[in-house]
């Protein structure tokens, strides 16, 4: 049948029955939306209801319920867990600022051409290769225990300090790659235009290329930022008492995993608004750039719309 499929009696080569004239019944936009919402609700009830039923009717459900979903214990541990979360917030806020700055510097170093800058490009490349390759936990141990262990006078021994250093070093490697991808996505004609006006290579990068690149990479940057927030729990392994360590202490005392559920909820509450904010930023940028043009892709915040 070639490419013009879709006819139900494609295989039968008999006489084609006359079809009813094709009448397109136009639905109003309200009717269309109501229909979409109904379909979405029914589909959700079936899928989520089904999954819930499977879990609740599993043989070990009551044991799991006792071990993970202890209501009174949850109520008792939640304030402590939330209180300890302050440490994580400090960690990721301080680290994120350092990461963005350091990551951008690394990306710019790798983007500057010319033989004179080869050593910088080389160092930046090695840096990114190394810190992306080694698991973050290993680096946390190395710096958290190793660096203070050197006993160099003046070198801080504070665990919190080394936690920040580690997170910054590890995440800068990822973030610099995000920035670099953004920089390389800007068409060379932009640099040509900037240079033709007499801007230096660095000025072209700073005023023309990087501002455009940064705008493009905000969603992946926020993605890495969410990753960083979660990875702050890794520093519990070098003895920083933060949310995960606090939950661990409670778990060890009660032999119940409910405190970890509290941890999960805290992170959910934090990252969900950030995820929606990222979506909003993407949509706003799209609207600004393609104002008036026909928009492709799912409409609305949850992609709820016509096919």
């Amino acid at each position, binding site marked *: 049948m070639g490419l013009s499929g879709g006819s139900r009696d494609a295989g039968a080569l008999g006489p084609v029955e006359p079809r009813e004239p094709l009448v397109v019944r136009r639905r109003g936009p309200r009717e269309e939306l109501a229909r979409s919402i109904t379909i979405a609700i029914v589909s959700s009830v079936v899928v989520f209801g089904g999954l819930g039923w499977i879990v609740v009717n599993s043989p070990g459900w009551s044991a799991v319920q006792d071990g993970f979903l202890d209501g009174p214990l949850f109520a008792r541990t939640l304030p402590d867990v939330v209180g300890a979360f302050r440490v994580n917030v400090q960690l990721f806020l301080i680290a994120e600022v350092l990461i963005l700055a350091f990551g951008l510097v690394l990306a710019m170093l790798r983007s500057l051409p010319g033989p004179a800058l080869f050593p910088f490009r080389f160092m930046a490349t090695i840096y990114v290769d190394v810190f992306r390759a080694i698991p973050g936990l290993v680096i946390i141990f190395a710096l958290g225990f190793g660096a203070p262990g050197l006993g160099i006078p003046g070198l801080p021994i504070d665990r919190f300090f080394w936690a920040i250093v580690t997170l910054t070093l590890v995440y800068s490697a990822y973030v610099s790659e995000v920035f670099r991808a953004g920089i390389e996505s800007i068409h060379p*004609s*932009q640099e*040509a*235009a*900037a*240079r*033709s*006006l*007499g*801007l*230096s290579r660095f*000025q072209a990068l700073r*005023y*023309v290329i990087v*501002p*455009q690149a940064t*705008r493009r990479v905000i969603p992946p940057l926020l993605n890495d930022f969410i990753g960083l927030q979660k990875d702050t729990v890794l520093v519990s392994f070098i003895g920083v008492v933060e949310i995960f360590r606090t939950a661990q202490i409670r778990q060890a005392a009660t032999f119940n995993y409910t405190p970890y559920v509290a941890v999960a909820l805290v992170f959910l509450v934090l990252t969900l608004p950030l995820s929606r904010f990222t979506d909003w930023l993407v949509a706003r940028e799209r609207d600004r*750039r393609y*104002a008036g043009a026909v928009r492709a892709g799912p409409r609305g915040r949850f992609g709820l719309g016509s096919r």
Partner: protein
Amino acid sequence: MTDSVVRIEGLHKSFGRNDVLVGIDLAVERHEVVCLIGASGSGKSTLLRCINLLEPIDAGRIFIEAEEITAQGVDVDRIRRRIGIVFQAFNLFPHMSVLDNVTLAPRKVLKRSRADADRAATELLERFGLADKRLDYPDRLSGGQQQRVAIVRALAMEPDLLLLDEVTSALDPELVAEVLNVVRELAAGGMTMIIATHEMGFARDIAHRVCFLDGGRIIEEGRPAEIFRAPREPRTRQFLQRIIDAGRL
């Protein structure tokens, strides 16, 4: 020596094994308008990009006034300040308003204050009928308006020489005139220009001198009347005949 703004001697340029320019000699006087004509791929754009040092050259020398700009150790940024170029695809900065597009280089390169740069830019924009667009972003403008902004952006650096690289080739036909009129006005104001163009009627009207490029060489040059009415070289004749057959002249 005459008062030439730019002088090119024996310019060679190749991309890999593709020889694009093979011995270009050209001098342009102050206030002179030179049009480069020739088929696509004849080297017009590459020649302009070489003059602006956007492309490194393989052999030959280029002088701006008395200074050899292709010499070792020349500060290319200082040279480019004096040579404006306008591209076929406008190349405006999409993240900046029209005003910021125009004032960026005066502020960052010439170190003008924002107030001074804004004032000068607004004057230029007014002169070219773009004053009401000064706070718009490029993607809100028509192609013709964008190209006029690009011209204003180049003019804001007060260049000694303006290079126009097929500035109407990316425009809808009904927008070509508004851009060409701007170029006419610049020519009338005495701007020294080298213009690569496919608009033969325009070249005939505006140019003091027309150069026909073919295979990376200037095959023939002369006053527009000579080139368009009585070309000496067979290849020029052939090229113009094709243009006439296409109804473009």
